[in-house]
């Protein structure tokens, strides 16, 4: 089962809003995965055992796992495209396991 993390300033509000939405969308598609809201201050700790990172900020930092644009899930703009990317990434992560 793929593990998805969503990070925001304290891992409470914005990240949880996005996580809840993604969770619902994935359930509708009958895709099994866990979606967790985490604190961006401790991102390095969480990213180690995650398969996909949904980001709501833009940084120059490079990550070893796929990064999805989480803003799309808040504004609705480009949401379908980002969700497709997310589903792809989950499938790839599941295939590896």
């Amino acid at each position: 089962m793929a593990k998805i993390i969503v990070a925001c300033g304290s891992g409470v509000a914005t990240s949880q809003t996005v996580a809840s939405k993604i969770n619902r969308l994935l359930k509708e598609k009958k895709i099994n995965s866990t979606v967790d809201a985490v604190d961006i201050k401790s991102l390095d700790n969480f990213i180690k055992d995650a398969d996909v990172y949904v980001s709501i900020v833009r940084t120059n930092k490079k990550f070893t796992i796929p990064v999805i644009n989480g803003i799309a899930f808040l504004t609705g703009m480009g949401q379908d495209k980002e969700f497709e990317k997310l589903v792809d990434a989950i499938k790839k992560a599941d295939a590896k396991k």
Partner: protein
Amino acid sequence: MQMLKEVVNYILSLGAPVFVPIIMLIVGLVARMKFKDAFSAALTLGIAFTGMTLVINFMTGAISPAAQALSHRTGITLTAVDGGWPGMAAISWAWPYAFLMFPLQVGINIVMLIFNWTKTLNVDMWNVWAKIFTAVMVSYISGNMIMGFIAAAIQVVLELKAGDIWGPRVQELTGIPGVTVPHHITLLATILHPVEIVLNKTPLLNKKVDSDFLKEKIGIFGENEVMGAIIGLLLGFSAGYSISGSLTLAVQSAAALVLFPMISKLFSQALSPISEGISEFMRNKFSDKEVFIGLDWPILAGRSELWVAVIITIPILLISAIVLPGNAVLPFAGIINLSFVVAALLLTNANIIHMLIMGLLTSPLFLYAATFFAPYITRLGKSVGTVSIPHGMMLSWSTFESPDFRFLAAFAAKFNIWAILALIAWMGLFYWLYKDIDRQNKKVTITNDQEVDLS
């Protein structure tokens, strides 16, 4: 009628962990959620209240004896325990009229968009709690609930106007187009704006600092468990605890700071179906209008300046709490000072030195507001029903957001002449800020357009 009143009173007497889920269930069903989903959201809200009560009680239980020992030993009396914004957000939902804030915020936003009074479409429903909190503080202090709602309504308008000026700046700082941060914590820019003008005229303070590098070095001190452990250990030693006692307090404090966001997340989880529904409704309504979509501040959290400024402010806040005469608040769960940093980041365009100066200058403001509002926060906390605050202790919030606006609004609501005049002067300052940032935004767009022309 009498019957209805008795029923309502009975339900309210059950305490927030029971009556708020009941309200939530009704709201969910009215919003045509499936019963199963509405029930699960409502129950999650009850769990969130119960969990938050546990954490607040655990925190006050661990910290109060240390704070009291500190006071006996040194004479430094810090009798208000800091529940931070997660604690405040939680107890705000215990206000019986809390849910009315959704239609108020959404209604004002729709009217202002229709009349072109704003370009901001705020879909951030989490921070509805900040309007509830304002309404509670103002109504407790003025004794008038209507005044609470009026203050909250003014806050909604100010947030949207602030959203209009921050939009271009958010894009400049994050590269994300079409969004803004209509958050009341940015309203602190109203009083920081004159400071920024002075700082801008001081050439030595306009140096570039590599904040990415700094964040890499000191970032660990911003992590909840590390920060909690350090504060707990320092508090233990200053209170004269033994080494084992201090170490225990350090681990307990780390636990409290890690648990706060975990529980707070449950509120957001419970409210997410409602907030999703509302934001979708708003976006569809104005889909053909050019707007800034208003989001919560963390879209700025990728800026390392923000975290560097916050972490360096932690010791400043702790020291201020000890040396400021009359301060009663022991900074703890609210010590990550977002209350100044978001405004400072936007206002200074991420000038880290300016931001730090603003952090230093505003610490007394937050601590004194926290001290002033502590009795009212304690009263709200006790209304949750099961929050127990030891005798002689209070609950507060060391980085009390929007201290200037909320303080003035509360006293203006009591029809104090000085407060009304001061609030009018504050509005004048806000107007100045609005005009100035708007002018700067236009300048930026013009230069950008010219660049396009040249290519």
